């Protein structure tokens, strides 16, 4: 049986790993390669690395660091940040990453998803959507454009149609707050797409992961809990298994 994935999502800024709260106030939390090595040894199911400076940098994503991170990962690695062209994707995959994550380019030009998935296969294309709650409704948020008059579910459905392999959904309101995932947002997506949806933002304790998956999340991503709490990825998986949610508990071999 397919397991629910627990995925650390780390942010890269100026050669450092950082953690944000509500997409602001970045705090440095460590060195990328040593962090990747620790996650690999802790047997996380996957790793997502987003270069948050890449869209402002002329050179785009910091490939040197990505290559160092990829060298430490014997698990699937997703990389995103500032991707605008097919060639950008080639360069990232050449470092040893398995999937790429796009955000702004997909909002600007949805056909880019179609092209990218026809070249690399849809399993390789993760589309990220940032979501902000305005009153009772959810709207798409973009870091450079602000709040857009777009419905995140409708956008995700279109992304799927154009060939996205997965959707990474981040709640701007819950991100870095550690009070749990946005359950209303999870329910909005439950069983509606044919591709997996990874929910990101809000996990502060293993029970938040249980709650997210019980309400329909295919996979969960998190950052805060791994950097600032006593909980490890394995604690989260044990909590999932105790609640009869299949997750991978790595066995130790000699």
């Amino acid at each position: 049986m397919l397991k629910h994935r627990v995925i650390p999502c780390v942010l890269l800024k100026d050669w450092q790993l950082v953690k944000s709260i509500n997409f602001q106030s970045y705090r440095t939390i460590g060195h990328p390669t040593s962090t990747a090595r620790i996650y690999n040894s802790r047997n996380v199911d996957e790793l997502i690395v987003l270069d948050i400076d890449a869209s402002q940098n002329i050179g785009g994503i910091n490939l040197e660091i990505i290559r160092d991170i990829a060298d430490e990962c014997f698990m699937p690695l997703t990389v995103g940040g500032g991707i605008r062209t097919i060639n950008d994707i080639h360069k990232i995959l050449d470092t040893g990453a398995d999937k790429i994550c796009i955000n702004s380019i997909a909002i600007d030009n949805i056909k880019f998803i179609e092209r990218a998935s026809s070249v690399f296969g849809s399993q390789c294309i993760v589309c990220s959507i940032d979501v902000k709650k305005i009153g009772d409704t959810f709207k798409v948020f973009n870091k450079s454009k602000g709040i857009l008059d777009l419905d995140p579910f409708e956008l995700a459905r279109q992304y799927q149609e154009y060939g996205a392999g997965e959707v990474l959904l981040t709640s701007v309101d819950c991100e870095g707050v550690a009070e749990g995932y946005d359950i209303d947002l999870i329910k909005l997506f439950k069983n509606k797409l044919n591709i997996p949806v990874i929910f990101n933002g809000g996990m502060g304790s293993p029970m938040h992961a249980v709650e997210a998956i019980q309400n329909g999340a295919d996979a969960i991503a998190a950052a805060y809990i791994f950097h600032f709490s006593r909980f490890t990825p394995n604690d989260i998986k044990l909590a999932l298994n105790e609640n009869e949610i299949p997750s991978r508990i790595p066995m130790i071999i000699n």
Partner: protein
Amino acid sequence: MSELIAIIDYNMCNLRSVEKSFRKFNCQIITTNDIKIISKADKIILPGVGSFKDGMKELRKLHLIDTLNESVIRDKKPFLGICLGMQLIAKRGQENGETNGIGWIDADVVRFNLNDNQKNLKVPHVGWNSVKYKKNCLLYNDIPDNSDFYFVHSYHYKVHEDITTGETKHGEVFTSSIQKNNIFGFQFHPEKSQAMGLKIISNFLNL
């Protein structure tokens, strides 16, 4: 002198992750589509992600099929097929119309056929899933039964001979690994499956 391992580069995926997982161990590894080098190699790995039809087209374009037949069938060199690389050694693939494969294994490669009660299951089958052993296989040495490995695929084996070493369930139960003499195939990605996957690779190197 350590053994020479050739990873076949036929433009069907980025091969760096396969290469770096072998570099963890003491072996000489080369990623190539040069027929002369492949002929000299002691062991051969065919990785790959992508469609069956494109994969066969690339192998033909690079004139690799005769060399593979000579090395694996005539000279009986250990062969490891990963994901698409396992699929391509079957007789037939059904992806984008029927295509003949390399044909070492009497099997068809068919799409997941999920019924209406399995709407919660998704294709491609992506993520960690367990492998239940059906037969002894040297490459599973020291790896517990029902261990989880990382899968990414929409098509899988339907075998017509008794070569299944492991099975996995995603809606239906399918063959997730095979062995026929010196030929080994894994539908999942050992190079992405952390400790258990690296163990398969070291077992392959120790053959």
